[in-house]
């Protein structure tokens, strides 16, 4: 009995000591971490008062240091065997049997002590150490919210805080500025190589604007510079042509298959000299009767030149030459057609450089217009539109299509007429019934975009507001403008469309 009891009592006490060490490490680590949080809160407040921005890394170091020191203390903390024995006595309901055995060892007569020990061991041996020394969270943990609240408040309110408050939110985020700059640089890349003084000036202006966007300026300044550049581009373009559309788009009116296919292809690419060469070749082939044209070919050619003449109305001379070609083709007069085509080719060659410049300037103007829209929408919390709702693509659903407006509205039905189009947009299509959405399809069917009328209204409103941002509105006009927007807003809300 005696040896076994002695061994058993040692085993029990060892198990208690191990358990106590584990609990000590847990509790002291928690306390250390809490102390670390408290210290971090205190130091953060001091730093904030001193004007230094608080850092999350510093707080993490404080907490880790506190927890580490606590763990060390937990490991090194002395364990009182008598206390452990009393804890196990309490858990086992042993009424101080084990504690008495521990305390009386070497003090009481051996025979009596062995009796106490045997009684104690038999009573507590069924009780696990975890019941005697359960894990518990330190009572001081209830104060934990205090330093945490102080930390959060300090991080929130301190200057240079790493935690950004909800307000104020900048109009345009840094990421958006980066996107804008990238968009502009992509557009610059797409522009043809500048050859004239005008295109060089425009390219240089766009490059300056890109550098400005790189510095993430105030939205108002960016829009002002953008508007200034765009005005300059438009001015230069108007000096070259009355058309607001790139001349090369006129070629879209020509069917892709037919006698004029190579000519139209060169036109669409903006290579007017090659287009002129192709046309001259056709004229020569006609004249030398190398090219044989059927009646259907003449009819098709007639329609193509007629459509081209309509597209080139702003280029009066070219339009007249195209009309002459159409007339000659309709008479199926090969010589006349050959001569008209030669004449048209000659004029096209003479205007090739100017037309290329027009294309380039129109492209630049379009890019600047799109950029202006994007910056105008960015950061705006009014309306439902987002600056980057649409994909950056010229294909279906891309950026080129989808912008248009209806200047007539009748019972929710929109017809194709009266739809103002952007240079890239052509045919709006509407289905039957009440309309809440406008679908716009490019003439070549490659691009199509649908847009809710409400979104369109929002976009237009934002454009207007962006324009207003550029220049300050005289006080006398402000009330008028306010009423105007209020009026159209209430109208749209009541009717569900702009």
């Amino acid at each position, binding site marked *: 009995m005696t040896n076994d009891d002695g061994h058993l009592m040692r085993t029990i006490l060892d198990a208690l000591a191990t358990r106590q060490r584990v609990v000590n490490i847990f509790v002291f680590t928690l306390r250390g971490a809490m102390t670390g949080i408290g210290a971090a809160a205190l130091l953060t407040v001091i730093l904030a008062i001193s004007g230094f921005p608080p850092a999350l890394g510093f707080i993490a170091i404080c907490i880790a240091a506190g927890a580490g020191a606590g763990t060390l203390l937990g490991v090194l903390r002395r364990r009182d065997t008598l206390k452990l024995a009393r*804890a196990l006595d309490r858990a086992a309901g042993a009424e*101080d049997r084990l504690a008495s055995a521990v305390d009386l060892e070497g003090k009481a007569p051996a025979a009596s002590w062995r009796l106490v020990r045997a009684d104690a061991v038999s009573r507590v041996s069924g009780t696990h150490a975890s019941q005697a*020394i359960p894990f518990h969270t330190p009572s001081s943990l209830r104060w934990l919210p205090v330093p945490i609240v102080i930390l959060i408040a300090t991080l929130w309110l301190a200057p240079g805080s790493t935690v950004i408050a909800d307000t104020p939110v900048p109009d345009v985020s840094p990421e958006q500025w980066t996107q804008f700059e990238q968009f502009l640089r992509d557009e610059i890349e797409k522009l043809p190589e500048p050859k004239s003084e005008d295109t060089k000036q425009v390219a240089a202006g766009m490059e300056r604007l890109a550098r400005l966007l790189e510095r993430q300026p105030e939205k108002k300044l960016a829009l002002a510079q953008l508007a200034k550049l765009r005005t300059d581009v438009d001015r230069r373009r108007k000096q070259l042509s009355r058309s607001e559309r790139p001349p090369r788009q006129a070629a879209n009116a020509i069917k892709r298959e037919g006698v004029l296919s190579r000519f139209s292809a060169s036109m669409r690419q903006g290579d007017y000299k090659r287009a002129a060469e192709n046309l001259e070749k056709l004229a020569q082939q006609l004249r030398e009767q190398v090219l044989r044209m059927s009646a259907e070919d003449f009819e098709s050619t007639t329609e193509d030149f007629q459509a081209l003449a309509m597209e080139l109305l702003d280029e009066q001379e070219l339009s007249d030459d195209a009309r002459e070609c159409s007339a000659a083709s309709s008479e199926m007069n090969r010589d006349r057609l050959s001569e008209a085509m030669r004449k048209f080719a000659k004029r096209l060659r003479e205007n090739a450089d100017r037309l290329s410049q027009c294309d380039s300037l129109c492209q630049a103007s379009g890019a600047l217009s799109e950029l202006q829209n994007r910056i105008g929408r960015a950061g705006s919390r009014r309306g439902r539109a987002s600056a980057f709702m649409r994909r950056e693509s010229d294909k279906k659903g891309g950026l080129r299509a989808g912008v248009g407006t209806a200047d007539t509205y009748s019972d929710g039905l929109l017809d194709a007429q009266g739809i103002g189009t952007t240079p890239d947009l052509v045919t709006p299509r509407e289905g039957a019934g009440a309309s809440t959405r406008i679908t716009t399809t490019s003439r070549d069917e490659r691009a199509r975009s649908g847009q809710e009328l409400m979104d369109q209204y929002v976009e237009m409103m934002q454009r207007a507001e962006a324009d207003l941002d550029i220049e300050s509105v005289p006080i006398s006009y402000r009330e008028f403008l306010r009423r105007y927007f209020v009026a159209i807003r209430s109208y749209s809300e009541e009717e569900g469309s702009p």
Partner: protein
Amino acid sequence: MSDEAVNREVIDQFLGGFDTLRHEIAKRIVGYPDVINQVLTAMFAGGHILLEGVPGLGKTLMVQTIAEATQLAFQRIQFTPDLMPADITGTVIIHDDEKGGRQFRFQKGPIFANLVLADEVNRATPKTQSAVLEAMQERTVTVGRSTHALPAPFWVLATQNPIEMEGTYPLPEAQLDRFFYKVNMMPQGEEELLGIIGRTTGTDETTIEPVLGPEQIQQMQRTVRQVLIAEFVQRYAARIALGTHKDNDLATDMTRRFLRYGASPRGVQTLVLAGKVRALLAGRFNVSCEDIREVTKPSLRHRIIRSFEAEAEGISPDAILDSLIESIAEPAAA
């Protein structure tokens, strides 16, 4: 400390003797299990008992029953205001010897017995009450120049009426301290009264059989003293006793306010001895802090002197001791 070890057999004998005696007493005494336990605890710890209660609760009957059941030499002293010390201790008288001469001879008083019932001890004058002081503590009686030893075991069982009643003299503090336990006997409940009626108003008479002799009792008293008590338990008992002293650091707000004097070292001795008896009764070889707590009130309630404020506000000694037990921390508590 004696090398003689307490073992399971000894404990069983103790428990057997205790239970047999308790059962025998319960044949005649209806109810009062706690009172009987406390009385027997004091008896086996070698201490004297003060039973307090209004007249007619069975105090005297209980003591008589114990005497019958233990085969102890029993004497009853009825304390009255005109009782003199010599009536208790005995006196020297002139004795005519066989040769016709005369000599002084000590005539033993009723105190010379194993079990003395001091009935209504507070009805005698303090002078007479003090006559039993030496006997209770020293277990000797000194008359004139002679000291006479009292028989062993010697045990005083005193009863008293509540001091608020007329015609009573409060026991001196010094004498109170000599009582191991002061046991309060409260009026019985309805069921117990029915039991009393059944046993005492019929023709049946309860016969008490002697179940323990003086030798057995003395053996059991030795067994009590062999129970081990750890140092932290002794320290706990000492802290409780010290807590009754209002100038001590362990004193609570209540003891500082409501106590004039605290328990004497006899109080600690009582706590430990009573704790040992309780441990034996629980079948243990060691005294626990719980034992000390359980015996604190009967051990100390008559050893603490309340202040005037406590008496005026009706704060009982038990209430003060309850607060003390709550506030005194156990040593080596986890």
